[in-house]
């Protein structure tokens, strides 16, 4: 058995046990709304956070294909992985790639243990898809930087221990110049968080208000002024994972196990699932080969988000009056508007994929 296959079996067995013991209840969109700090610590103790990082920093030195297999099984189970997801997926790797030695030593082991929990400070009220127009400022201070501004649509910020913040350190000629990346301690003075109620209730969305919040020099990511190029590198990590396909898998699982509905509808979904999973696997293989397959990741997200919604529509078609399906369906329905907005809107991804098509045809 290959390492990946063994890991898959191991994760599956553990999750089946935990589920049977009532440690968690499966749910769609669990990587965003399945917030359970204890569960993250359990995974950390099992060695299932920071799988790809160096053991020197609390990681396990395994490949992206292994991480792909692990995350597939977590999403399949609808396990509550939101508390550590952002750190494990993209900020941990960014710290490993760009962080100072001090930052790596302090944060990577804490993330891998499920203790340090990250939120993203990227979007602003007037900087959504147009990320280059961020206005949050960082100005020089003794031994570090003072951040001021407003971030929005930051998921679970109200209970995160740390934030990734994209801020402007100078005004370049081009809008993309003068941006820098920071790691912020959420307990720093000058940091205020307000939750934003949404259609799911109190919700996960937050605003972060920064009023001269201090970040020490050692917590700057990479180079001052190189933020745009650096954040772009996060995209393959952010967009290319199985959570762009499997957000509603727990609902599909329910349908498949009921063995209901038109066979052709079920077969179409399963066939497409096979193709999408292979595409996500190919992204992981290319990341293991040292590439940053940004266009392939965009393609995956574009098609994967469509699949996630089509699962909901299939449930509507198949079992509209089944009470259990109904609850899972309603839960997934309220999550659906976010699928094609978060992590790059469909419109932005379409531009990326179109450019790739024309590049490849030259």
């Amino acid at each position, binding site marked *: 058995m290959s390492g990946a296959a063994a890991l898959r079996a191991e994760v599956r067995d553990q999750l089946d046990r935990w589920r049977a013991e009532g440690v968690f209840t499966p749910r769609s969109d669990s990587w965003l709304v399945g917030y359970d700090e204890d569960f993250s610590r359990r995974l950390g103790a099992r060695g299932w956070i920071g799988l790809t990082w160096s053991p020197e920093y609390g990681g396990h030195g395994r490949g992206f294909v292994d991480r792909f297999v692990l995350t597939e099984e977590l999403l399949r189970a609808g396990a509550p992985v939101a508390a550590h997801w952002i750190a494990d997926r993209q900020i941990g790797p960014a710290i490993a790639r760009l962080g100072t030695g001090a930052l790596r030593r302090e944060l990577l082991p804490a993330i891998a243990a499920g203790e340090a929990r990250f939120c993203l400070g990227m979007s602003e009220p007037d900087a959504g898809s147009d990320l280059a127009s961020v206005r949050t400022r960082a100005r020089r201070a003794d031994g570090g930087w003072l951040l001021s501004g407003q971030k929005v649509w930051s998921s679970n910020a109200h209970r995160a221990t740390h934030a990734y913040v994209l801020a402007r350190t100078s005004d370049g000629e081009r809008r993309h110049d003068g941006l820098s990346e920071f790691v912020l301690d959420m307990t720093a003075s000058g940091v205020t968080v307000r939750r934003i109620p949404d259609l799911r209730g109190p919700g996960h969305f937050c605003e972060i208000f920064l009023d001269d919040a201090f970040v020490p020099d050692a917590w700057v990511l990479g180079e001052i002024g190189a933020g745009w190029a650096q954040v772009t590198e996060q995209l393959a990590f952010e967009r290319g994972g199985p959570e762009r396909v499997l957000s509603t898998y727990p609902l599909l699982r329910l349908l498949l196990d009921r063995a209901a509905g038109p066979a052709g509808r079920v077969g179409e979904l*399963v066939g497409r699932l096979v193709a999408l999973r292979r595409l996500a696997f190919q992204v992981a293989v290319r990341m293991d080969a040292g590439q940053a397959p940004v266009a392939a990741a965009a393609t995956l997200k574009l098609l994967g988000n469509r699949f996630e919604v089509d699962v909901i529509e299939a449930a509507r078609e198949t079992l509209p009056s089944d009470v259990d399906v109904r609850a899972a369906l309603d839960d997934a329905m309220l999550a659906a508007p976010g699928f094609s907005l978060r992590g790059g809107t469909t419109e932005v991804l379409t531009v990326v*994929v179109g450019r*790739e098509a024309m590049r490849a*045809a030259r």
Partner: protein
Amino acid sequence: MTGMRAVAEAAVQVLAARAAPHRDEPAAEMAAMWRTTGEQGWHLLAVPEGDGGMGGDLADLADVVRAISAAGLSAPLPELHTGVFGTLAAGRDPAAALAGRIGVALPRGAEVAVPWGRHLDAAVVAGTTVACADLRPAVNLAHEPVDTLARPAPDGGPDPTGTRWRLLHAARLVGAAEGAARRTAAYAATREQFGRPIARFQAVAALVAEAHAQTVLAAAALDAALAAADDGAVTVPAALATAARAAGVVARCAHQVHGAIGVTRELGLERLTRRLWAWRDLPTEHELEDGIGRVVRAGGEALAWSAGPEIDVRSGG
């Protein structure tokens, strides 16, 4: 197998040269494609050299099939390869298997369709061989011969030969989709309207992106099927269904981007799209998905999930 790109390029060149004189005589073109394939023997890729084949693996053969259809050409590689595969699998003498003109028979409603049947002695289906006599001649939308036998199809059940053909037919569809998507992207980047390349209009760029995305997905599904070529229940039909769906979308996007000129014989796009429409219909994605659905209904979610992506000797994990 190294040098496979050269084999594929040579196959395209030879077939294109033999097709060229027959631009307005599809029947003559198809007869030439049949003869050329037989002479060159590309379908013996992925047949062991010890059995008289050309060696190489299934992915090599699929690459050649894909390149040929990407160029808007027809050739019976999937049919002839499957004929050899099925005959060898039945324990027949390798020399006899390679000497015979043997193709594949595809159950279809009350009949059996035999692609290129008029040129064949026999066709394999579900472990047996049927003689190609008394065929009702027919051609598909791409002018290819797809003749039919009136005899009822053998009973269902696992059919490794059918699975092999479906895999190669998926490669054929993926190639044509890639060819059409590539032409479409190139056209959008150069054709001007309203004073600029039409690719600068988001509505057009979205069609280019959609066509590209569908080919990427179909190629991924084919890749999965090549890594699980025996999974006739889920992975292989999934690859063909994905390719068939991609075919419809790519053909639609290609014609929409090209505008009226896209349907002209002169431009040649229709050589690709007619093939996409013909090939995606035997069988349709609906027939394939219905089959997958029945299997999954019996096996539940665990079966569906077990068609996992990392079963791949080349990547291992």
